[in-house]
């Protein structure tokens, strides 16, 4: 079959909702797009452990500490599900990690913001995980089989992340005036960065078309962002808090909430590496990798020795 015919068969499979599996023929651009998207999604999970890890040793109670530990461990697990899916496309783990460390591969910009107070941990769970869930629920139906299956697994676990965050804020919202102020302050700082997680406006994002045609993505950035705003406006009422946007208003004609303009200048600054924590995050990842080198070497040496002993015993 010619490449043209293969592409036609491939698109027909996509159109008829047949999943693409690792050994199936796929256009090189489809493979590359998936490698990039899945690996960057994986990096986001891994880097995403850093802002929260910041509070593990300072959680206000043993219960909150245990919850936070479990959540951060989940993020590591999510990164591993995704790296595993990515490797089915023919790229090695080492290559993907190198891409992150060299700065060639990016991760979600949201993790370049600092977690300044304990309330930030609640706000991250509610808003950041909440926004991620919007994207991830869509991705459970993505066209590449291993990616879709990893997403199903992740979404099942992500619900705990969002709920624990909201519950944590709920406790603060019923606390002392200081705790209430801390809760509102965290919401104020995380709201806009959370909206930026959906990416540029549809009119600015040109690769969406191809990704939609291949059903890698199934909803546009703006659709997902609107869905998120509509959801949060209702949820914030239960906290007795407010969202920091004077332009939030129900629009009966659209059946959606209107909301204010994102500071796109800030968005591009963080994307380009000038956010509050870009350098710190990457540095922490590289340091962890370098300082873990001796562990990797020792484990490999131990395995080799054990194998030799077993072989000698068998002989």
């Amino acid at each position, binding site marked *: 079959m010619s490449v043209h015919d293969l592409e036609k068969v491939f698109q027909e499979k996509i159109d008829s909702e047949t999943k693409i599996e690792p050994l199936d023929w796929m256009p090189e651009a489809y493979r590359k797009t998936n490698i990039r998207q899945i690996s960057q999604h994986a990096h986001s999970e891994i880097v995403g452990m850093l802002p929260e890890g910041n509070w593990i040793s300072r959680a206000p109670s043993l219960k909150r500490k245990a919850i936070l530990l479990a959540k951060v461990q989940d993020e590591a697990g999510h990164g591993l599900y995704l790296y595993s899916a990515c490797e089915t496309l023919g790229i090695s783990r080492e290559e993907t990690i190198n891409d992150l460390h060299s700065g*060639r591969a990016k991760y979600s910009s949201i993790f370049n913001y600092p977690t300044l107070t304990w309330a930030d941990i609640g706000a991250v769970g509610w808003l950041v995980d909440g926004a991620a869930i919007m994207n991830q629920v869509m991705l459970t139906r993505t066209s590449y089989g291993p990616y879709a299956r990893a997403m199903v697994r992740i979404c099942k676990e992500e619900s705990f992340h969002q709920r624990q965050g909201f519950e944590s804020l709920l406790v603060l919202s019923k606390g002392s005036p200081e705790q209430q102020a801390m809760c509102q302050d965290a919401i104020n700082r995380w709201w806009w960065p959370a909206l930026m997680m959906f990416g540029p406006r549809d009119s600015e994002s040109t*690769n969406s078309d191809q990704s939609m045609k291949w059903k890698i993505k199934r909803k546009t950035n703006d659709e997902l962002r609107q869905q998120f705003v509509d959801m949060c406006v209702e949820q914030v009422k239960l906290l007795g808090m407010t969202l920091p946007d004077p332009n939030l208003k129900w629009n009966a004609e659209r059946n959606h909430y209107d909301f204010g303009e994102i500071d796109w200048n800030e968005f591009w600054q963080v994307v380009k590496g000038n956010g509050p924590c870009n350098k710190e995050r990457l540095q922490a990842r590289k340091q962890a990798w370098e300082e873990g080198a001796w562990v990797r070497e020792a484990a490999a040496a131990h395995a080799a020795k054990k194998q030799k002993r077993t072989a000698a015993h068998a002989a």
Partner: protein
Amino acid sequence: MNTSIRRFFYGDIPGQESGGTPAPEGPKNDWPLWEVFIRSKQGLDHKHVGSLHATDAQMAIENARDVYTRRQEGVSIWVVKSQDIHASRPEEAGELYDPAADKIYRHPTFYDLPDAISHM
């Protein structure tokens, strides 16, 4: 506004110079890759759940416990080196499964029996 970054893959992650291209050839230091299969409860088959890297089978099983059974998803784990999995080729699926395609008499519905018959 910067308009040079225009491709976005996962939400706010820009796509330009963003990985996915093979790194320069060097020694591959990855530990071997293992495929993981989990039996979710007694009485069910082991099912493929994903893969992970480990130096040996024991480490693979311990890592699989941490990665794939944090919420009691399994009662038994199998791991097998990915390189030891042999797969049929999708492009040969036609010939491979062809012998079964025209043997509809293997299905119980092929047989037209009177409605009066019961327990069959």
